[in-house]
């Protein structure tokens, strides 16, 4: 059985296209409600972006469509980035001089064995941490020079995080978790709720709105986390081992979903993983070992080795 066949079986079983259908349906629904046109074709193409058309988005639409000035300019740029952890007397360099440019619209997979510094890199890309040495530029701005509140704004509006351990707020129900980023951006409650409904429909959890995270399966939790990462419609999705705690089936569903987001929404997706399988979705793969970039590989999507 070829890998494609396997994927096909999984696809039919988990039926991610059904989800995408619902996404499209919702998209049309949004189009209708805003254009007033009664047109309701099945809408195979998703060119009309439901996010940018919807008024529920907290971020400015200009940001959602294009951040960088042109394709040549990197969205994120790392120059000689070091991360050194001080443990008492001992110093440990988790990243040793990383140079990397990430462009808008990429599906970047950072691949490396455990302990190679992937999460450390990820934290820098997501403005969760600052480098010990070197510079991280986000849209040509040095993140080390930004105030904490500014970094919080960037995290809240530009980046959607997906974690290996889901990191849902245990005391908030599904809906509460999904719209939490919108609350931090002071979105109007009614619009936030609509947005939440919409996203939960996309990830197929409309019937679990009031479940607490503890009342969901692992896969469902990660879908909630994905919906949450899309709440503010950020241009960048950062995922650290998003499938690490899931079985292959569910993992594939999640990856297909991210892949669709990349293709149809033009989102920049960065996944950090040690799972070789994920590579097949990537447009570029960064191999990292012992805190250094081993090689960078350009790819054409979905042309995985048979």
């Amino acid at each position: 059985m070829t890998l494609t066949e396997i994927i096909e079986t999984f696809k039919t079983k988990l039926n991610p296209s059904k989800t995408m259908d619902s996404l499209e349906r919702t998209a049309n629904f949004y189009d209708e409600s805003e254009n007033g046109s009664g047109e309701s074709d099945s809408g195979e193409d998703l060119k009309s972006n439901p996010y940018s058309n919807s008024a529920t988005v907290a971020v400015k639409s200009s940001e959602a469509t294009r951040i960088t000035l042109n394709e040549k300019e990197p969205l994120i740029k790392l120059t000689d980035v070091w991360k050194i952890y001080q443990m008492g007397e001992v110093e440990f360099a988790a990243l040793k001089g990383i140079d990397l440019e990430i462009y808008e619209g990429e599906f970047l997979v950072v691949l490396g064995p455990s302990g190679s510094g992937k999460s450390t890199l990820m934290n820098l890309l997501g403005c969760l941490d600052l480098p010990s040495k070197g510079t991280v530029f986000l849209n040509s701005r040095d993140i080390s020079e930004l105030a904490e509140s500014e970094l919080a704004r960037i995290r809240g509006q530009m980046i959607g995080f997906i974690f290996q351990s889901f990191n849902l707020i245990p005391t908030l129900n599904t809906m509460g978790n999904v719209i939490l980023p919108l609350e931090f951006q002071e979105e109007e409650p009614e619009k936030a709720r609509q947005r939440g409904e919409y996203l939960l429909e996309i990830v197929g959890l409309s019937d679990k709105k009031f479940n607490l995270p503890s009342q969901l399966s692992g896969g469902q939790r990660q879908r909630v986390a994905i919906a949450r990462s899309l709440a503010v419609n950020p241009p960048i999705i950062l995922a650290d081992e998003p499938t690490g705690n899931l079985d292959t089936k569910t993992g594939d569903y999640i990856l297909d979903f991210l892949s669709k987001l990349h293709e149809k929404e033009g989102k920049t997706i960065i996944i950090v993983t040690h799972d070789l399988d994920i590579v097949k979705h990537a447009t570029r793969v960064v191999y990292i070992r012992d805190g250094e970039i081993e090689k960078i590989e350009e790819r054409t999507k979905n042309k995985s080795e048979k």
Partner: protein
Amino acid sequence: MRNSTYLKMALNMLLHSKLRSWLTIIGIVIGVGSVIGIVSLGDAMQASVQSSLSDLDLTKITISPGYTQASSNMHGPPGMRESGASTDSELTKDDIAALRGLDSIQYISGEISGSEKVKYAGQTATLSITGVDPQVWKYMTTLKTQSGRLLEPADKYVAVIGSSIASETYDHDIGVNQVITINNKSVRVVGVLEEKGEGDDSKIYMPIDGALNLITDAKKDVYDTITVKARSEDLVDSLMDDIVKKLMVSRHIIQEDDRDFSVTASKSMAESVTEMLSSMTLFLGAIAAVSLLVGSVGIANTMFTSVLEKTKEIGTMKAIGAKNRDILMIFLFNSAMVGFVGGILGIMLGWIVSYGLQSMMGGDMTAGGGVSISLMIEGLTLAIIIGVISGVVPAYRASKLKPVDALRYE
């Protein structure tokens, strides 16, 4: 983030909080409850003392025989100091004569008192009889009659009786112009006093000349007490000194040790009672404050633990766009809410405590009882402030957590 969202998040945190948090709230409940209980009890006591002091004549000075060193500075009630070396001393009309020259004295009168059998309608009761100078008594006393009149200069075998003698002591009520028998002598009741609520209600007042013949060991021109009314309240202190000096001279006493009389002002008595009361309220208040302090340390402790427990959540919230201020406010709102809930329950507890204590201490206390609205509001505000103050440090620490470190926390 909006305030309403902070409130929502904080409430969510409170509702999902562990038993530990609710135990912490009990600390605040007890603290606020005891403060409210004690303050309202203190208020009620103050009110009741004030009402009994208000009809106290503050210009009154009482001279009584006997003197003890220990009580010399204390101005306690006269009854307390009859012990001592010189109980056999007497106050006589010579003493009154000696004092008459003092300018600050408005009225002066000698009084005798004793307990005698009083018969009415076939029943006998032993009652306290006070013989007073009918010339001046009605100007000196603060007592008022509910029916009849006070004593007049020409009276002799007549009496003014306390309200409980009139209506409770005997099966039949005694009215004005009824005749009672004291030591086989008929005495006509000319007045019934208003109720005062203390021992005064079972006293009989008579002109001293009449009382002299009725009270068993009373002697002419010998008094149990001499009562003086000062011209004004301000003169009381200096007048007391003058009286002591005058009497020392007239009684040929040279050394302080040989002194055989005491001088007491009702003013200083009133002062010492109020003083005692307020220091008692202060003392109890201090205990309540300590329990509040303990309660707030409890809140702080719980907040620290809950910040620690929620470290990973804080990291997540920061990753999805929470500003430091958002985290700070969520935790502050949470601790304010703990204070609020504790305050509400504390007010209820305080009300029960104050009601219970007041009814325990006697019926007339409950008149001023209950917890006033303003005290409730103060208690609640206090509880919220305590919640916020004890939450400030943990909330600040939570807000300053670095997102990476918080996310890595297990």
